[in-house]
């Protein structure tokens, strides 16, 4: 702190230097950008690069006149006119605009548009509150009211920029940077190439590099950030003396970890740097806010500029040129305005305690941050929290004892912006504390974690262990694989499950539970939803009269689970939209001139009742639920929820239900894993664990698949299709996620196989043979039934061939004849099917009750 301060002590002067070259005026910031800038601020290193006209600079570049509350000094004011910025290169006598001096500073209304309510009484304290005062004793300069020493702070920050390396950075912005080089120096280089003069600084980095600096940044952002700006610009123009920027680089810190939640804001946060998350609910129109008023004398055309101070403009009463009183008039189009926008944000639903309504906060965005966010965006905001007293009446002195609070934004960060790039971002913002991660990992390390979790799932629903396990794996999902390079697009990672079974077997409760558990769940009932309700519809916005695309349940549950109750009662047209969603995971829409494809990477958990209200064990699944098999084959697991009708089961069930009615709530909670833990566990696994197939697991899968196919082939049936193999892979991956393992191992495959077999055993059992038969699901008919049909057809054909002399026959007669010939019973349906098959072969024609052989 000693060196930069001591040298130029004498240069510090009052800002009344009347004559400064016009070229210099351009660099003198009109606002407080450079307030607190010490006179010595590293001019020496810059000297060689600066044009010679910069020589008197140190005199000019004193901190005082950039004080926000400086008095009006017409000579400077005139010269620092923004109009002169207009043609920057012409100003400096043909010298190309370069270096910190040549680049105009830009006002930062985000730092000072609303001044602190606490002002220094000018009578008692002649020094303005942010003026750098000199304490003669210790040669230590601090900004008034803080403990920030400008020079030290600057030096520290420059060191931070030059040295900070974060090899473990995971942020996407840094993806193309060399992680072993100083991060921010690379970013400065980027600025010099791209020309966007904004440097975003992660406060977490500052904090890990220099905790004291971080503390100062959070506590005195209004003072420290301009210091940072200064430091960056010096450094930048030293490195890249020739780069031309629109204005000087502005530092935008983000991720100040002080506050995460809107609800925890309290009076102590006022005027501090905070970061909160929320959702934008409303944005105002652009508001031009006057920064500097331009007055012109009506008599002599002399002009004067007055800076807006605390929302007020001190209109000059006397023209200093011709001494006429009240001759100055405000010229609007020569005054300076900055953009401003009011944004309202609301707490995100996840952050809220139950039973309360969300809080809202007003946020002001300035300059280029205007219009950066839209209603509905989830964002993290870093800014300065402000409170201003409200006046009951402008002419009265008693104020309402309430403050208006708002946040001046410094940095917006959309939490869901990456959705555009198709990455899984679901829990991006959900940061887990170290302790939480630790407990989750401990839980995952337990050998019985799978059973624990599945029993924690919907504990009020008795038994159905395998179904719960299936749903658990669905919650975790598989690993997303991208084959778009090879032309197949994304592979589905989501597991779809269908529950079907008797009424009153708590299917709906299970669905409700899942819907409540997952952050992006949707619950619809097949009876009450239409195709558009599931996909998307176009409507006219009543306010803007524009057509807007309103997304339906499937799109809304992207990356979540869509629970569809009463799946069987859904109309066919509605069901047909599910085909695309359930395999391609997209939704194509072409209506009202909007043609688009939306992502719908949703898992589907559906529940269906049997057609005859009670499950008929003598029929196949298809016959019982009457769903098109094209749809059924898209479900990875199809579970039957049947009444087991077994005494021991009944007893346990009764006990379970009775206990619901007298156990106190505390008892219940002790018994099981907390729902919150389960939620976090799933969220963590989904976002951090991406298991890959190991060699053995791959082998095991191949074996399992071959085995599945072999089982059927012996009897002339095919019992597995590639879709089933994909299901197996997904289930195995999900099971690996439960273990927090990065590798899919043989045990995962074993469990996937077991579960798949369990589900199959229940749903794809051919009631006629008792064998597991996948073809029930894929063709809607069991292989034995198909074989039988072929036999009958052949027999019928043979019989017909034997009697070619009578080309016309009666239906009933033929049926009786065939029945007489065959040793097994033939139903009328089967007979009709056989006839139809022959008819398709053009062997015969049917007209009413007569059958005619084709000739």
């Amino acid at each position, binding site marked *: 702190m000693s060196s930069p301060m001591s040298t130029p002590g004498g240069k510090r002067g009052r800002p009344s230097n009347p004559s400064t070259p016009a070229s210099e005026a351009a660099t003198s910031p009109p606002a407080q950008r450079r307030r607190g800038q010490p006179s010595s601020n590293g001019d020496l290193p810059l000297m060689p690069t600066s044009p010679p006209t910069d020589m008197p600079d140190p005199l000019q570049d004193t901190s005082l006149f950039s004080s926000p509350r400086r008095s009006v000094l017409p000579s400077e004011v005139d010269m620092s006119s923004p109009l002169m910025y207009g043609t920057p290169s012409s100003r400096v006598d043909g010298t190309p605009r370069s270096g910190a001096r040549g680049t105009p500073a830009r006002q930062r209304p985000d730092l000072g548009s609303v001044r602190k309510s606490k002002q220094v009484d000018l009578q008692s304290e002649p020094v303005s509150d942010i003026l750098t005062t000199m304490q003669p004793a210790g040669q230590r300069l601090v900004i008034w009211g803080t403990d920030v020493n400008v020079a030290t702070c600057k030096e520290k920050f420059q060191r931070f920029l030059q040295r900070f390396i974060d090899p473990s950075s995971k942020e996407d912005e840094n993806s193309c940077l060399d992680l072993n080089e100083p991060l921010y120096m690379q970013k400065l280089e980027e600025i010099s190439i791209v020309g966007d003069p904004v440097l975003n600084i992660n406060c977490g980095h500052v904090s890990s590099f220099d905790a004291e600096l971080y503390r100062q940044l959070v506590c005195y952002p209004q003072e420290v950030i301009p210091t940072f700006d200064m430091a960056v610009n010096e450094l930048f123009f030293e490195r890249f003396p020739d780069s031309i920027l629109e204005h000087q680089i502005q530092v935008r810190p983000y991720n100040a970890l002080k506050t995460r939640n809107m609800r925890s804001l*309290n009076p102590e946060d006022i005027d501090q740097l905070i970061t909160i998350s929320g959702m934008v609910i409303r944005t105002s129109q652009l508001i031009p806010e006057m920064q500097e008023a331009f007055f012109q004398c009506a008599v002599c055309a002399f002009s004067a500029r007055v800076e807006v101070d605390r929302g007020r403009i001190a209109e000059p009463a006397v023209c200093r040129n011709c001494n006429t009183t009240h001759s100055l008039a405000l010229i609007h189009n020569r005054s300076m305005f900055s953009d401003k926008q009011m944004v309202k944000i609301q707490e995100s639903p996840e952050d809220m305690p139950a039973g309360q*309504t969300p809080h*809202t906060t007003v946020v002001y965005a300035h300059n280029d941050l205007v219009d950066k966010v839209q209603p509905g965006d989830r964002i993290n905001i870093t800014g300065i929290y402000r409170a201003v007293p409200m006046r009951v009446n*402008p002419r009265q002195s008693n104020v309402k*004892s309430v403050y208006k609070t708002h946040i001046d934004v410094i940095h917006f960060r959309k939490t869901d912006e990456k959705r555009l790039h198709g990455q899984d971002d679901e829990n991006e913002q959900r940061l887990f504390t170290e302790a939480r991660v630790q407990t989750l990992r401990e839980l995952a390390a337990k050998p019985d974690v799978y059973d624990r979790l599945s029993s924690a799932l919907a504990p009020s629903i008795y038994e159905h262990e395998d179904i719960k396990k299936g749903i658990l794996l669905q919650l975790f999902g598989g690993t997303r694989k991208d084959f778009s390079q090879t032309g197949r697009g994304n592979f589905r990672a989501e597991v779809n499950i269908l529950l079907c079974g008797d009424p*009153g077997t708590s299917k709906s409760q299970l669905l409700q539970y899942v819907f*409540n558990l997952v952050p992006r769940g949707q619950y619809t009932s097949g009876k009450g939803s239409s195709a558009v309700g599931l996909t998307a519809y176009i409507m006219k916005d009543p306010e803007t009269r524009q057509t807007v695309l309103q997304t339906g349940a499937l799109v809304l549950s992207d990356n979540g689970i869509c629970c569809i109750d009463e799946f069987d009662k859904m109309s066919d047209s509605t069901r047909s939209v599910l085909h695309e969603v359930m395999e391609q995971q997209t939704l194509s829409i072409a209506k009202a001139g909007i043609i688009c494809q939306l992502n719908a990477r949703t898992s589907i958990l559906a529940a269906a009742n049997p057609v005859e209200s009670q499950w008929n064990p003598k029929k196949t699944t298809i016959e019982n639920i009457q769903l098109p098999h094209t749809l059924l084959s898209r479900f990875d697991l199809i579970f039957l929820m049947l009444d087991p009708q077994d005494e021991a089961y009944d007893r346990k*069930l*009764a006990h379970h239900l*009775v206990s619901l009615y007298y156990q106190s709530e505390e008892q219940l909670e002790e018994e099981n894993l907390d729902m919150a833990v389960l939620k976090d566990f799933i969220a963590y696994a989904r976002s951090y664990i991406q298991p890959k197939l190991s060699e053995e697991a791959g082998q095991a899968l191949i074996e399992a698949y071959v085995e599945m196919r072999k089982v059927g082939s012996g009897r002339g049936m095919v019992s597995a299709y590639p879709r089933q193999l994909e299901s197996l892979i997904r289930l195995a991956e999900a099971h690996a996620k439960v273990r927090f393992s990065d590798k899919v191992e043989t045990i995962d495959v074993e469990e996937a196989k077991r579960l798949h077999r369990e589900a199959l055993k229940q749903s794809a059992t051919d009631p006629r043979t008792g064998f597991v038969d996948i073809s029930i699901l894929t063709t809607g008919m069991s292989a034995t039934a198909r074989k039988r049909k072929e036999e009958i057809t052949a027999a019928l054909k043979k019989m017909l061939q034997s009697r070619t002399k009578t080309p016309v026959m009666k239906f009933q007669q033929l049926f009786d004849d065939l029945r007489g010939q065959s040793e097994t019973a033939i139903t009328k349906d089967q007979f009709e099917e056989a006839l139809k098959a022959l008819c398709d072969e053009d062997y015969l024609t049917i007209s009413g009750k007569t059958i005619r052989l084709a000739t």
Partner: protein
Amino acid sequence: MPSTNDWINNPLGVVEEMFGASQNSSDSGWEAKVTEFFRQRLMEKDAHTWVPSLNDVPLHYLKPNSLVKFRCLIQDMFDPEFYMGAYDTVDPSTKAKVLRCGKYKDVTECGVDLDSANMVTSERQTFYCVPIPGESPWVKESYASTCQARVVPSTSYVPSRQKRSYEDDDEDDMDTQPQAQGHAHNAAAEAQGNGDSKRQETEAPSGQKASSPPLDLNFPLPGEKGPACLVKVYADWDSFKLNDTMEVYGILSVSPALSALSDQSDTSSSLILDPAECMETAEELRVHSPPASLVPRLHLIHTQRLAHNNPLLPPAALEDSAASLASTLGEMVSVRAELLAYFTQLLLGDVLAAEYLLLHLISNVYARRDVIPLGKFTLNLSGCPATAGPAYTEQLYCALQQLVPSAYRLSMTLQNMNQLRLVPRKDYVANRLLSGALQLAANTSLYLDETQLEQGQLDPAGVRNITALGNVISWQKVDYDFNYHQMEFPSNINVLIASEGRSLLPSDCHVHLQPQVTPPNMEAYLGSALTAQSSSQLNKFRLYLTMARTLDYSISEEVTKAVEDDFVDMRKDDPQSISADDLHSLLGVARLLCLSLGQSALSTDAWSRAKHIETLRKSRSEPQGCLNGNEP
């Protein structure tokens, strides 16, 4: 008795005294002392009856800055606000600085020194409170009659008394608060200007007449009356939940300066670019700082949560007064018999339906297991005689309203279903929660009259409304519409559906009415049944219903065993006869049956009785059930 009532008439005096004392002694706990002082005072015997209530005293009869109470439901929660907890004022002439306390006040004194180092910024939370929706008239009357505050005029008062009460006030206040009195007059005059001169109460939008910009007071139910109130909470606001019912004691603030804000924004001088003022929409300002004469502010000092809203029972938790209630417990069986007889009469001689109605009225969601609410008991009373027109269901509702603390009859006409807002919705322009008819306090009886439903088409809003009703019935939750997302709020509403056939809405229990008598003149029959009950009899019923609902319940090991055996046996005989769901409802019925008899543990007798009435009920509704397909 000025000394005893000082804390009621001038509570700010007490606050300031304590604040002043704390400044000298550097004792920081003055805030706790204030709340403790008022709590102690209110604990004293009958002391709380001396505090006038906003519910039954018109606003202009209440002195500004006096202690008042308000029985209300939290309808909306506004953003927390920062205020000056303590500040210096400077006398312009003498330059003397005085430290003032800003707590429990809306407006500061003149001459605030904004730069003083003594300024303390504190935080408080604002709740928008409305009277408990659907509160039955008898509850209102009963509360009003027990209130002993002097300013209380009865519900019907004559102008002469009006005058006297003014004089009373004047005498008391002349010396202490002449200025405040002026406010009161202003408020009164203003208030009387836009309503009836006889009885001034702010009214729900349906009845809004003259006041220039009709301010929607946002009552959940249409046609409600009563004041709405902005309650400022100073501590522990996280413990309050939306839709909580409570009785708040606080300092009334009706300073006209509060509402002046919106009027003067246009006249403010042009050069003031105060960003805070130009940003908020006019709607938001109007909603968040409505005229104090319409929506008074209440600075909360003490709250009494209402576990129930029955004035016949002490408001506190039941344990405190267990002794006094022991006698009533003993009477429960006899009262139950009388009530059953009364219901039987109302339900045209159908004893079974009467029994179920009784069980329904004492049901209460006592716990939630995952997503399943336990204890709910939605009753669908089908077979309501349609020939008599709406008269029967209406009369039945009147009878129920006389028994329960709060009730609402939603007549399910097509128009109502399509147009009524049932689910509360967030209005982002005005930044408030627009209330809906399903924003009800716990244990409110919602009476759905399906006999009114006629043929026609439901529009999307109507479908949403039906879905919302279904959600309330099945899961006891309401999904409030926050435009960008929905938020689930648990509810605890007793839903009774009166219909001709089986209702289109789900229900826990469906009873088909089998009238034993067919009175020629339905209206006269029911009318006489209604009037036959003496008020003391009605009070007994009311007490009984609230008591039975709050009883504890348990099942012993032996009974559990018996129930299990029973269940297994029943399944053995015929697996189709009883499913898990049936057992669920059977256990629910058994629980309510025990509570209705004043027993706190399940007995085998009650179990078999529950089985018996369930069988009876099922045998009735079976032919009906077949028509409705395979609804679980």
